[in-house]
């Protein structure tokens, strides 16, 4: 195989299959210096507040470890629990032979110009690994922060849940209050080994002129469980991603949940694809989208390749105050005996529901926000209570803005 750098060079002008094209040259990829912070409480308050909104707690209460990267620099990286590793990817690639085994294993470096640029400009990223049998008590938190105006941040993350382990990760992406424009490209590769359980919760908290191009692929082995939650309720200029997961071992399960809110001027193109490649695998994709003036394209694709697999896709959209929701659910059954279904709905809040709540004493406004809150609340089985609380908090914070 030719080396990664060569392949990246060749793909550096290759446009992505979907999503508006981003001119990478209008951003600066020059490394920015930020000092390493041993004590997270020493982070500037304005940044800490922004991080909290993305689920990152500088006090580290109820966390098993922390990784924080500002622009291109790692400012903190450590694990609190034995059996867990939180390492900057550049360090991991230098020090550990095993890290190379995973690097660009699932995402193709030459998939498009964004993957190529992530190889050519690599600004670090995290490697989070749970050693075999390790059960994380608390979630590990990771924050990818944009501070310098007009920066382009290229990160590469790898999460490895070794055999029989249990790992929960909350990733918050946020921008400093003074940043107006920026680009975030994040490569993520997830490895869920035999009988391991991984939950990955990503909360995006961008700004109005930020472009975001995550590229992520996961693989789940026999008996493994991968929960992938995504929440983006704040304005963003353009977000396009299509995370993909391969279920390759018997009984592997993947569940994707996403909550999107499109504000005026925002364009989100978010998908989810799960390929069911082994017997008894199961997959579920559940998406909730609300727009009050933004454009949301919500894709979902389930591919059943073996008999007996079960998969369901649910995609619901609510248009509150203008905007567009385009739901594109897809099912591909490639053999006899697959059981796959989808339901998609785009609509408005039913007057009947508003009036029902009003007859119980709520004002029209309170009734509407109660219905919106209900619409956005999805039960995610298997999520630890702290993460459930983080998601609820993010939804609460943002559903107020929606109204």
């Amino acid at each position, binding site marked *: 195989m030719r080396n990664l750098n060569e392949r990246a060079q060749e793909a550096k002008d290759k446009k992505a299959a979907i999503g508006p094209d981003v001119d990478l040259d209008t951003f600066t990829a020059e490394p920015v210096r930020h000092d390493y912070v041993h004590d997270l409480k020493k982070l500037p308050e304005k940044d800490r507040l922004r991080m909290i909104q993305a689920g990152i707690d500088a006090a580290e209460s109820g966390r098993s470890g922390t990784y924080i990267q500002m622009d291109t620099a790692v400012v903190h990286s450590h694990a609190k629990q034995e059996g867990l590793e939180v390492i900057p990817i550049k360090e991991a690639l230098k020090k550990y032979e095993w890290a190379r085994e995973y690097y660009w294993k699932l995402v193709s470096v030459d998939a498009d110009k964004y993957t190529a640029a992530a190889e050519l400009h690599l600004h670090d990223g995290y490697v989070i690994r749970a050693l075999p049998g390790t059960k994380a008590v608390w979630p590990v938190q990771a924050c990818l922060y944009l501070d310098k105006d007009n920066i382009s941040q290229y990160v590469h993350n790898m999460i490895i849940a070794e055999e029989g382990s249990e790992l929960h990760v909350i990733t918050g992406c946020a921008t400093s209050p003074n940043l107006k424009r920026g680009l975030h490209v994040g490569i993520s590769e997830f490895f869920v080994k035999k009988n391991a359980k991984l939950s990955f919760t990503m909360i995006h908290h961008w700004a109005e002129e930020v472009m975001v191009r995550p590229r992520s692929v996961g693989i789940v082995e026999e008996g493994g469980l991968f929960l992938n939650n995504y929440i983006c309720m704040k304005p963003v200029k353009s977000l396009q991603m299509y995370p993909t997961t391969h279920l390759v071992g018997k009984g592997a399960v993947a569940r994707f949940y996403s909550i999107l809110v499109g504000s005026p001027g925002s364009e989100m193109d978010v998908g989810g694809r799960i390929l069911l490649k082994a017997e008894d695998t199961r997959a579920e994709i559940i998406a909730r989208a609300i727009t009050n003036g933004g454009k949301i394209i919500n894709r979902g694709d389930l591919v059943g390749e073996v008999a007996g697999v079960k998969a369901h896709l649910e995609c619901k959209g609510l248009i509150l105050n203008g905007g567009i929701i385009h739901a594109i659910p897809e099912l591909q059954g490639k053999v006899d005996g697959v059981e796959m279904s989808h339901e998609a709905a785009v609509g408005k809040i*039913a007057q*009947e*529901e508003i*009036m*029902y*709540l*009003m*007859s*119980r*004493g*709520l*004002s*029209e406004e309170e*009734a509407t926000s*109660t*219905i919106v*809150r*209900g*619409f*956005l*609340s*999805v039960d995610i089985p298997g999520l630890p209570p702290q993460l459930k609380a983080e998601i609820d908090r993010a939804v609460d914070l943002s559903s107020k803005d929606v109204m």
Partner: protein
Amino acid sequence: MLLIEDLQVKLGEREVLRHIDLQINAGETHILFGPNGSGKTSLLMTIMGYPQYRVTAGKITFKGVDITNAPINERAKLGIGMSYQRPPTVHGLKTKQMVQICSSGRAVDIEGMAARMNFTDFLERDINAGFSGGEIKRSELLQLMAQKPDLLLFDEPESGVDLENISLIGTTISKLLQRDFQMEPGKTQVQRKRERTKMGLIITHTGFILDYVTADKGQVLFNGVLSCSNNPTDIFNCIKVMGYEECVKCAI
């Protein structure tokens, strides 16, 4: 007191209620009879304030306040509450949260009330999602127990309820309307009756509810017109034997 004077209501272009006069005094419960499509639900929805039921003439007064054009939530705040026949599902809103909403900030023992309504298992389920007819009725009553309205509107509270639960529904409604009999220290049953304040308007098709709830008056609604006002059991028996059309002739 609820006072309805010469009320006329249109739903879309169709006139659904004509020249309705109705007075329910504090402490009174009335039963509303009428064939399908006669306007019974329309009358309840109009009292509750659903805007698609357009009042074209007449007046509704509750507790001395003209509520003819008041929004639904203001009527709820004044003390009007309704038990719906087919309420909508609100996804993501748990029954428990809904009961909380009904209590509007008052401390209520939701678990205790749910246990009494045989409804504990439903508290964590989305309100009305997949509920059977009988479950809906129990959920509606649970909400009214928390809401504590002074005027209670029941739209066919016994429809779809199985035999096992019909007495639970019946006795609960009776309690909500202060029509149950029980020992209260220092009070005779006559006194309790005299001190009743709750008002009720109950739509019934089957009349089963009359086995559990005493009522002061029966009203028959026929083709959008309130045609008869009499002892509820008399009316029910007349309808059973003669049918609605014959029964309302007493008034015409």
